[in-house]
């Protein structure tokens, strides 16, 4: 990959919530699907000048659903390995 997207990372107990603001279009699909309802609008603006998203990492269980449902691959979830 030659194109590098700026990344914002939040860490929680279960894992990392990465957002690529340059990919986030602020559609909100992830917000609706988060089982913990822990995603919200962020201060960072997304590609269209609308707010990107961020997670409340106290709640996030790193289930990865938000990553799955994002049509723009703007979210990346990295789970912390259990044993580590």
């Amino acid at each position, binding site marked *: 990959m030659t194109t590098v997207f700026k990344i914002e990372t939040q860490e929680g107990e279960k894992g990392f919530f990465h957002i690529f603001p340059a990919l986030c279009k602020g559609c909100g699909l992830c917000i609706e699907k988060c089982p913990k309802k822990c995603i919200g609008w962020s201060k960072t603006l997304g590609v269209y000048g609308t707010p990107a998203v961020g997670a409340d990492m106290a709640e996030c269980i790193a289930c990865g659903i938000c990553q799955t449902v994002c049509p*723009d*691959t703007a979210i990346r979830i990295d789970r912390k390995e259990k044993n580590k």
Partner: protein
Amino acid sequence: MTLNPQMPKCWRVESKPHKFCPGCGHGLVLKALGEAIDELGIQDRVVFGCDIGCSLLTWDFFDVDTVQTHHGRTTPVITGLKRANPDAIGIAYMGDGGGYAIGSQHLVNAAARNEKITVILANNTNYGMTGGQMAPTTLPGQKTETSPYGRDAEDIGYPTQGPEMVAAIGQKGAYVARGTMANIRQLKGYFKKALQNQMDGTGFSFVEALASCPTNWRTNAKDTWNFVENEMSKYFAVGELKVPDQLKEV
């Protein structure tokens, strides 16, 4: 170490963010497709054809050979290519307008001839690209730009059952399924089978994917999901309609 987005490898990163609207179902469908291509390791052999419709925005979406065709004509272009080069893995990607309206003769005849190609159709119950007119798949009562008072099913019928039609005309060896952006894992599985079926040379493959069009539906995220999961599913049953033997154990 820089972390990269979890894009399918075959997505063309230079053209991202892609050109679809926020929350567009095409993005999700193509993520599932991209992952299917990656997992099958067929990037080099795929020829991707996109229709005119919002699918046209994928003309540089993948790092695979791609042809943006003409409205409704992706099926014959990919058919012609596959006939000329049977080693290629041909994917025809289109919307419900392109597949069930203007290109329906191509769809049913490719199915009838059991063309060894894979047709993927994003059903978003309207003509997205042209600004939200009624499609063959528009739901009864659904308001669109050309059914401003809601689709009157008595007058112009209930939504087209595409995979059901293709299955009825489909041949031995055909694979036919309907998936949804609401179940990406399943959808990817369907895509993999549809591509595998082509690679096996068994028959025609067709997958319809239920997809959102929040722009023309004028829905927020919540209503978007609701429409896909609760409204569309009333008329469009998700599942496999035709699975050739060799894919049954998969």
